[in-house]
């Protein structure tokens, strides 16, 4: 994302857009942000944003359902786009679609990063994106009936639209969800339906897109092409992921991640919950780094609520985030080693350091992995002296020693280099177009880090470098992670030395909190990339819309680009180098 365009204030930009696209663009009425664009000119506006104004990075695409008229706008489906420049943004575009037949032109041909996210919006919200090259369900299976994020969709065991449920107090008598299974202990089928006679109505296994590639014959290779399932579960057990691979001999011709095995409709759960109750659920997104998930949600909520965070809390947040980053990268490198075939040596050493950091988290928050530590306007508990001592010992003594050791025995290791150098190359322009973030993007030579580009919390007060790679291969991603671990330690040492006193939360958290009507998009640089929370409030105690833009999910889209021409054994390496967590991919 080299920036050759001089940034201009958004207001001027709005007037410029209004003049350039008269009638097609209008400012969104308060409390909404950004612009409303008509459907027919959306692609034109997007191209103008990308080419003339430098908004080359489409961060998030999602949908919102408004079954009733609000704020003078008719009942509608809305697609919401968040565009960014290397330094600046967001520019929010709202596109309205008819509720009876929601169709919006697809931005995938212009911004490939919209590809997966539009599929998700189609899958969960039922907005059809015209011109999308591959508009299929992505998280749910093809035979699924309905679109669960629509407001009129009721899930199994539906109780009420909003928590807290009425039946709990003051005269709650417990009913266990299992006891409400309509089928009892037995499985019964609807009348006239038999599994033996059932034939899939659609391409439920997802083989169709591979047909064309699979039927081609190679002039050089004698054998037929083969469509192969890797997983669900195997791809070196980073989680339950299925990779659909077309191979010629052992060379990858086409690869496609099939996901959703851990899908629990996090967004729908989030809409049922109260604002605060979503915090522990964010722990479960990327279960390796729950602290940063908490932080991202807190940042988004604080934007919505306009809450100030005390300085000590900001420092503690930074300390926790950087420990999380360090931990995530050790685990990532350890598992990369595992996938290379070093087996458990590197991984166990990584896990050992991780245990120390988890000890710290447990001491501070009460839980090792599901920390639930951040609150709106601060953190839940102060760090005790014991925890601070441990943090200092880790940041100043043990972890620097560990990075050096890891660097020493892995970086120049001949086997490791032979397996990683030149494998899975991702060119910088492709990485930007596909919306990749995190070490994956920086290893391709793009110095984009949200801690620098749009500093949140107090990251503007620390000295650290944005580590980048040159070649964009698996090896460079490894080097970037090693570099980022060192930078994290730098930040940690500064933060621990300067940790001020004072309160850790601006006001005691309230059980039922009302957020002012409006929308907010909070994003942070989580260890895997950009983690964003898009929140819409209607002024009530529960989110009206709650969407997670997860880095693992978006980053997976470049699998095909990186894997083509490589061997099956390399696929596992490349997957490990993206560093995904399936809890976050599937949500």
């Amino acid at each position, binding site marked *: 994302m080299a920036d050759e365009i001089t940034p201009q204030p958004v207001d001027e930009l709005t007037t410029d857009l209004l003049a350039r696209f008269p009638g097609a663009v209008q400012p969104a009425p308060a409390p909404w942000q950004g612009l409303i664009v008509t459907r027919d000119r959306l692609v034109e506006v997007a191209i103008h944003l990308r080419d003339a104004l430098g908004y080359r990075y489409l961060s998030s695409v999602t949908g919102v359902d408004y079954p009733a008229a609000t704020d003078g706008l008719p009942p509608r489906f809305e697609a919401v786009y968040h565009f960014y420049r290397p330094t600046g943004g967001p520019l929010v575009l709202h596109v309205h679609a008819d509720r009876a037949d929601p169709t919006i032109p697809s931005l995938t041909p212009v911004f490939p990063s919209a590809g997966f996210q539009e599929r998700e919006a189609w899958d969960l919200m039922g907005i059809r994106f015209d011109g999308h090259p591959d508009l299929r369900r992505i998280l749910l299976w093809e035979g699924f009936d309905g679109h669960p994020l629509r407001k009129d969709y009721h899930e199994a065991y539906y109780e009420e639209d909003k*928590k*807290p*449920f009425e*039946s*709990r*107090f*003051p*005269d*709650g*008598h*417990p009913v*266990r*969800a*299992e006891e409400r299974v309509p089928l009892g202990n037995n499985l019964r089928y609807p009348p006239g339906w038999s599994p033996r006679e059932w034939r899939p109505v659609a391409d439920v296994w997802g083989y169709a897109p591979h047909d064309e590639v699979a039927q081609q014959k190679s002039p050089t290779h004698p054998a037929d092409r083969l469509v192969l399932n890797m997983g669900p579960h195997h791809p070196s057990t980073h989680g339950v992921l299925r990779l659909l691979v077309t191979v010629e001999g052992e060379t990858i011709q086409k690869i496609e991640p099939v996901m959703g095995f851990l899908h629990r409709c996090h967004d729908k759960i989030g809409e049922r*919950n*109260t604002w*605060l*109750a*979503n*915090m*522990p*659920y964010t722990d479960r997104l990327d279960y390796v780094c729950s602290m940063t998930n908490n932080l991202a949600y807190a940042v988004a909520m604080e934007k919505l609520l306009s809450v100030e965070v005390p300085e000590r809390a900001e420092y503690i947040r930074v300390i926790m985030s950087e420990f999380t980053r360090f931990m995530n990268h050790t685990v990532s490198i350890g598992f990369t080693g595992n996938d290379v075939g*070093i087996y458990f*040596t590197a991984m*166990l*050493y990584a896990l*050992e350091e991780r*245990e*120390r950091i988890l*000890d710290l988290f*447990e*001491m*501070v*928050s*009460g*839980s090792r992995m*599901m920390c*639930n530590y951040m609150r709106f306007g601060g953190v*839940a*508990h102060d760090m005790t002296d014991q925890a601070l001592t*441990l943090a200092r*010992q*880790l940041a100043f*003594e*043990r972890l620097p020693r560990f990075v050096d*050791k890891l660097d*020493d*025995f*892995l970086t*120049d*290791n*001949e*086997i490791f280099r032979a397996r990683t150098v030149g494998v899975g190359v991702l060119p910088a322009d492709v990485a930007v177009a596909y919306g990749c973030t995190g070490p994956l993007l920086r290893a391709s030579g793009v110095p984009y880090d949200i801690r620098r580009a749009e500093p949140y919390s107090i990251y503007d007060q620390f000295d650290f470098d944005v580590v980048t790679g040159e070649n964009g291969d698996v090896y460079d991603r490894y080097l970037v992670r090693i570099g980022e671990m060192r930078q994290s330690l730098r930040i940690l040492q500064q933060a621990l030395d300067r940790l001020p006193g004072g309160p850790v939360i601006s006001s005691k*958290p309230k*059980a*039922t909190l009302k957020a002012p009507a409006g929308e907010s998009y909070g994003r942070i640089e989580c260890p895997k990339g950009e983690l964003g929370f898009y929140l819409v409030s209607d002024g009530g105690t529960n989110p009206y819309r709650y969407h997670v833009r997860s880095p693992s999910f978006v980053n997976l889209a470049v699998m095909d680009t990186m894997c083509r021409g490589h061997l099956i054994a390399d696929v596992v390496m490349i997957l490990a180098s993206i560093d995904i967590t399936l809890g976050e991919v599937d949500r």
Partner: protein
Amino acid sequence: MTASLHVLKAFGVTIRRFVESYLDDLKWFFKKGFGGRYTPEALPIRQGVHGRGIFTVQYPAERLPLPERFRGFPFLVENRCVACGTCARVCPPQCIWIVRATDPDTGKPARRPSEFHIDLGICMQCGFCAEMCPFDAIKMGHEIEIASFSGGASFLWDREKLTRPVAYHAQIHPTAYAEEQAKKSAKEAKE
């Protein structure tokens, strides 16, 4: 030969680790005798920041000490709950059910629960109930080994099963308990 030097170096790391484990064993042998490594005094040092060698804790024979803030499952502190319902409202998975008692004389709601249920099978151990409770009546305990063969229904705990004496709370949460008492006495002094 030079081409694989770094691989050998990596092997060296493993070997060093292997030797260190035995050295650590020997060190504790001279201090504490046979099996000295597995005595309670050794655990914090082995697990500490300067620990070397093997990392394994021989669970369940050995157990790591739980920090005070550790969030196990919630328990009720004896005679403190006033059935205000805050915990039931804030609970993210909605696993708390409370029936408020009625005063037999007046027929009005009383300040105590007649029933209190928590379904530990769906409790996510977030600790909001303990954090929000205005009367310090519900706390996160340190019990974690509640697995059972009878499955789901056995995790629906009622008031009897959930209640623990104040002494238990004071024992596992010494700092928090001291703070509570200090606050209480300050309030009483004011009055």
